[in-house]
């Protein structure tokens, strides 16, 4: 370890521990986890993540002491080939410090929550190792995310980028052998594969952008790239456009934007803490971070910025409409996440980097809160279901739940829909306000923050984005405003469906509140969701986040509060909540009743319900032709042509034909065999005749010797 630059003061030497701390936790659990109880495993993992948070705090403090100057800490040399000089260097500036704080802070809270959650997960059957494995993956995720946000070059960022992608894959498919309801199925594995493969498409874009960058700008290191970019933008602007647009493909993959967002809703197959940590608060914001980090490049090409903003705004609106038609509590939040990521991408696309980062932070707070509360709701229902349905057969607790469920099914058991009970379906909920009061209030706070109601965190951050949009791109502004309206509507719908009205299932009637280990982290997040807006209030002297990030992304304008924009969005949000109350709150849904929106909206609602058939479209346009092509390649080309024709017919046939011609009975036995036999008989006959010389009579040998001597002497004499 050595310093690459002189450091004035601070805790910069701790930088590697951003990564080493979670890695340490991971190793402890991986090696000794089998001897630990669940609580110890969870505590070790949480402490490791907490240590990373403390390091982040110290680093952020040091950055502020250093007046936001970039500080690099080189850990090791990495790749030195020709002009390519890559080092394992941590970069600490205001932007990376912000991301570190969000990732490790929210991450630690979710670690703690997960101790309680994983223990009760319906799919957790006290398998030894599963619990430990989950926390190992979570720690690994924190480490990878830290590499992503603290890397000093696009390639180091890419290492983290792939690392979090791997963790995402591992954790979506955590219950790989069952579906979300613990039935044996490959649904979760397929969801994991979908996420991984979709992200490969995005990574392809990222890599192409990286290669272009190295080819034309000569480096991967952030500052060198930014320094070289303006000259290239003058001489060959298409290069910068290509880099930014290929990077946008990467952003679309990781941050779930159109057209690659399809993996995120399926990613809800993972355990709920994973949905909160990876698929809402941190990993999916990596794309937003990437664009913000590359601000210096994006600013050079307004065309690319416009495309980024339009992609973000389109995603925000599109996903918000789908969220309206979903019944699964986590699916609603998933589409909401896509929509909110659209807000952020639109913001950074417009050049409103501070607004984008601001929304990223507040969204991390309130969406993590919402997801974790949703997990609490699901477990509450699960407890209610368990307490009620197994009242009679409470003794066979020891059996795996899956087995119980099967038995139940066979006997036409207690299931509400003649199916396995789905604790995530909002149609099975209702009235949880009374049975789960803590979760209800936490959920309310998250909802109000997400809906953008004054003075919750979401109001300030969303408003800043809308304000920037109203100044730059009118079309983006309107798309985002409508998306905000839908946001408030689907969140209102969710609240009324889940917490108000009557219980629509026995499980909801008997739902139980979650333990403290789960609710306390939620309370912390709830507080942050309330006061998080204070980070960057739109008043003179309060643009804290803006001034903080100014050091990294350059001068930013601190916009004052614009009353019309804020007023319109707030009014629309309130209107949306009112409409949702009118539809879902005034006359609460009865058990088995169809959604009241279905009738007036008709096929539009069917579209929303079915995600606008985008998955089906992908199947029709890409996946099925691809499968047909692979079937064709496998069946016709490989099997019929290559195996049957080339191997069996051509090669084997030719060989057989040749051997019949050349090696038939005549040639084989009369030619080759006869020669071999002749060798044998010839040797025998020669030796038989020679054997006669060896007659055993000493006198005949003596005669031979004598004759030989006479011959030799005769020759010598007569020569």
């Amino acid at each position, binding site marked *: 370890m050595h310093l690459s630059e002189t450091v004035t003061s601070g805790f910069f030497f701790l930088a590697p521990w951003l990564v080493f701390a979670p890695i340490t936790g991971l190793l402890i659990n991986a090696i000794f986890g089998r001897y630990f109880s669940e609580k110890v495993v969870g505590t070790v993992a949480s402490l490791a993540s907490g240590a990373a948070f403390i390091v982040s705090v110290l680093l952020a403090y040091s950055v502020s002491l250093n007046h936001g100057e970039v500080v690099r800490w080189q850990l090791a040399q990495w790749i030195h080939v020709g002009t390519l000089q890559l080092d394992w260097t941590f970069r600490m500036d205001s932007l990376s410090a912000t991301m570190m704080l969000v990732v490790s802070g929210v991450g630690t809270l979710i670690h703690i929550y997960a101790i309680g959650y994983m223990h009760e997960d319906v799919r957790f059957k006290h398998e030894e190792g599963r619990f430990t494995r989950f926390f190992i993956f979570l720690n690994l995720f924190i480490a990878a995310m830290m590499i992503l946000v603290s890397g000093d070059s696009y390639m180091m960022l890419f290492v983290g980028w792939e690392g979090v992608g791997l963790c995402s894959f591992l954790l979506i498919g955590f219950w790989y052998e069952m579906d979300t309801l613990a039935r044996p199925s490959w649904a979760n594995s397929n969801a994991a594969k979908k996420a991984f493969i979709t992200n490969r498409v995005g990574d392809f874009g990222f890599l192409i952008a990286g290669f272009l960058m190295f080819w034309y700008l000569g480096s991967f290191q952030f500052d060198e790239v930014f320094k070289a970019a303006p000259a290239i933008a003058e001489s060959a602007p298409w290069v910068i456009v290509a880099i930014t647009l290929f990077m946008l493909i990467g952003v679309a993959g990781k941050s779930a934007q159109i057209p690659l967002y399809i993996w995120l809703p399926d990613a809800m197959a993972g355990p709920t803490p994973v949905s909160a940590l990876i698929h809402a608060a941190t990993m999916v914001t990596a794309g937003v971070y990437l664009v913000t980090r590359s601000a210096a490049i994006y600013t050079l090409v307004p065309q690319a910025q416009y495309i980024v903003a339009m992609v973000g705004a389109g995603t925000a609106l599109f996903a918000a409409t789908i969220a309206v038609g979903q019944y699964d509590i986590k699916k609603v939040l998933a589409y909401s996440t896509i929509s909110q990521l659209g807000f952020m991408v639109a913001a950074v696309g417009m050049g409103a980097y501070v607004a984008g980062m601001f929304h990223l932070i507040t969204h991390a707070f309130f969406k993590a809160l919402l997801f974790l509360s949703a997990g609490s709701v699901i477990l509450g229902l699960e407890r209610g279901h368990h307490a009620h349905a197994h009242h009679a057969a409470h003794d066979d607790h020891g059996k795996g739940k899956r087995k119980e469920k099967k038995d139940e099914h066979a006997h036409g058991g207690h299931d509400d829909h003649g199916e396995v009970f789905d604790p995530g379906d909002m149609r099975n909920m209702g009235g949880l306000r009374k049975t789960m009061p803590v979760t209800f209030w936490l959920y309310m706070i998250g909802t109000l923050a997400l809906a953008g109601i004054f003075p919750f965190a979401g109001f300030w951050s969303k408003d800043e984005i809308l304000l920037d949009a109203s100044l730059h791109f009118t079309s983006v502004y309107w798309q985002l405003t409508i998306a905000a309206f839908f946001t408030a509507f689907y969140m209102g719908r969710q609240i009324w469906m889940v917490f108000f009205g009557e219980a629509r299932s026995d499980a909801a009637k008997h739902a139980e509140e979650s333990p403290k280990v789960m609710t306390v982290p939620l309370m912390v997040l709830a507080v942050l969701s309330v006061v998080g807006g204070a980070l960057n209030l739109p008043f003179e002297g309060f643009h804290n986040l803006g001034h903080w990030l100014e050091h990294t992304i350059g001068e930013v304008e601190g916009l004052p509060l614009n009353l019309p924009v804020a007023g319109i969005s707030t009014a629309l949000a309130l209107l949306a909540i009112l409409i949702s109350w009118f539809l879902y709150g005034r006359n609460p849904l009865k058990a088995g009743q169809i959604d009241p929106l279905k009738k007036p909206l008709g096929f539009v609602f069917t579209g929303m319900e079915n995600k606008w058939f985008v998955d089906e479209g992908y199947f029709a346009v890409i996946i099925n032709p691809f499968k047909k092509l692979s079937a064709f390649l496998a069946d016709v080309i490989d099997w019929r042509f290559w195996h049957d024709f080339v191997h069996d017919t051509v090669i084997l046939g030719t060989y057989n034909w040749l051997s019949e011609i050349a090696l038939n009975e005549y040639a084989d036995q009369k030619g080759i065999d006869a020669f071999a036999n002749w060798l044998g008989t010839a040797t025998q006959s020669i030796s038989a005749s020679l054997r006669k010389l*060896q*007659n*055993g*009579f*000493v*006198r005949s040998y*003596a005669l031979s010797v*004598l004759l030989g001597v006479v011959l030799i002497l005769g020759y010598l004499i007569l020569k």
Partner: protein
Amino acid sequence: MNSVPVDYYVLLSAILFTIGAMGVLIRRNPLIIFMSIELMLNAANLVFVAYASVLKSFSGQIFVFFVIAVAAAEVAVGLALIVQIFKAKKNINIDELNSLKG
């Protein structure tokens, strides 16, 4: 001294050697064969001493001593072998000692 010409010695030696060789080839009694071998050796000795006398050199006479010594040793070994063969086979007909035939 009016000596005998050396050619006579050589001729006598050739006659003796031929008689010896014939004896080895024709006779079947190993004792006779031994005697024939001795005859051949002594034919050679005769030539050695004859030429030693003519050439006034001792080398030939020294050779003869060696040949006599080797012949004595050979006879000792050979007679021992013959005795042992006789003990084993009760017969020393040389034509019946053919167990080495191929």
